[in-house]
């Protein structure tokens, strides 16, 4: 079970690399925001896999905090982008 968790951690790390390519290349700010949201969601999954791989359920608290902060960050960025869009009128 621990070996499987380590292998799957490698797969999720590759996924983070793919999402980071979109974060760097994204043509607009909303695309980068989507990539950032996906990065934090994958981070929640990585925290869960890490707690299984090292047999430490304490790391699930990291997943809780990451989910909370990711939602707040995404909503705040979206509000700022909307205000910026209406600023030019």
């Amino acid at each position: 079970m621990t070996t499987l968790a380590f292998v799957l951690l490698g797969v999720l790390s590759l996924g983070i690399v793919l999402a980071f390519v979109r974060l760097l290349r994204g043509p607009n700010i909303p695309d980068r925001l989507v990539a950032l949201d996906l990065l934090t969601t994958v981070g929640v999954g990585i925290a869960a896999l890490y707690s299984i791989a090292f047999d430490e359920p304490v790391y699930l608290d990291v997943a809780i905090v990451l989910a909370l902060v990711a939602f707040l960050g995404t909503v705040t960025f979206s509000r700022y982008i909307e205000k910026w869009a209406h600023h030019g009128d």
Partner: protein
Amino acid sequence: MVTDIICAAFMIIGTAFMFLGCVGILRMPDLLTRMQTATKPPTLGVFCLMVSAALYFPEIGVTIRVLAITLFVFLTAPVAAHMIGRAGYQVGVKFWKGTVMDELKDKYRGTSIDS
């Protein structure tokens, strides 16, 4: 033994969904398609990974934390995606060329950043 097999199966399924979401955000042509592939499959992946963690640690505290994470992600992921989509529409991102319908065409107007 059976619990181990179910736990491993949930782990593999959840990781596969998350990885497919990451591939989709790189391959999709548009903001809205990218948004939908970056929101729904990783949410299901989080659910599967949390079920796997709840099966791996047979303690009531872990189960309660796992339920809290799953409920929170299921509640907030659609709200976050909706806000990103609305902000993207008001900024005026270009749609994919195969987009069939735009029901908000005359409802909003904003400054375009595609120039």
